[in-house]
């Protein structure tokens, strides 16, 4: 299946979802005009990827800002991965947070509380 690659904009993150390696990356900021519309193709891609491949999934998130409707969509994305993990798929999530923003770690931890899959929270090396 084809990779999903989108360049970032002021209010949308860059997307790099690679089917062969199982590496999924989101970087930048996320407060699109309509988060549901923005994330729908990402969710569709991940759903198909999980169904058609058995490659281990590594999801790397380096988002320095998310609005609440993006947070909701991220939860949907993590739920897909959580279900796959529950069904035996190898999945790891690594969340890189902005160390200078106290709230960023809190947000990452709140996502981690919602899932049981391996979820690592690390300071962003580039921040």
């Amino acid at each position, binding site marked *: 299946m084809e990779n999903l690659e989108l360049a970032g904009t*002021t*209010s949308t993150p860059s997307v790099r979802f690679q089917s062969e390696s199982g590496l999924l990356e989101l970087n930048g900021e996320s*407060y*699109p*005009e*309509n*988060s*549901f519309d923005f994330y729908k193709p990402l969710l569709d891609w991940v759903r198909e990827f999980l169904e058609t491949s058995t490659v281990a999934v590594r999801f790397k998130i380096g988002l320095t*800002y998310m*609005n*609440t*409707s993006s*947070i*909701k969509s991220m*939860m949907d994305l993590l739920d897909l991965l959580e279900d796959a993990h529950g069904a035996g798929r190898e999945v790891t999530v690594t969340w890189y947070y*902005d160390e*200078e*923003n*106290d*709230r*960023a770690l809190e947000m990452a931890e*709140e996502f981690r*509380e*919602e899932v049981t899959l391996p979820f690592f929270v690390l300071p962003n090396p580039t921040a």
Partner: protein
Amino acid sequence: MSVNLFSLRERLGEAGALIAFSGSFSHSLIEELGLAVRKYLESESVQRTAMMDVFSVYVEASQNVRNYTALKLKEAELSISASSIIVIAKRDEHYEVNAGNMVEHEDVADLRARLEELRALDKAGLKVLYKEQLRKDRSPDSHGAGLGLIDMARRSSAPLEFEFSPVSERYSFFSLRVIV
């Protein structure tokens, strides 16, 4: 109207306004003003956490205004969304985000009840409510996730302040103040 804008500027100054916009909100406008807010706060050497709190409250407040006026009032006259306003201000060492827009009378009771609920909760209670809302299904007629007001309340250093002023048979003007 007089061409002299000085008195308008003075009133904004009295309110501590750093950035103010009144008119119809578009996504690109929200982006541009948001970048301007961040640039300003950076130039003031505001700590990153505080800066992102102000920015975040600004994004949630302005997207709420835009979503409400664009979706809920899509059939209404242009003047309804054109009367939206956002004012980012600094008063007594605190930053405030003030947002205002027309709401239909029939929506006032629900909105008031939600705001009163948020005002009554402490930070722990707000987190519980946030998590509950995060797990609820999206309302099909909304762009949002119903999390915006809760998130604003979590980032604010004082309870959310609000007021409804009746303006016509159909509309009230909703004013919201979030103190970061």
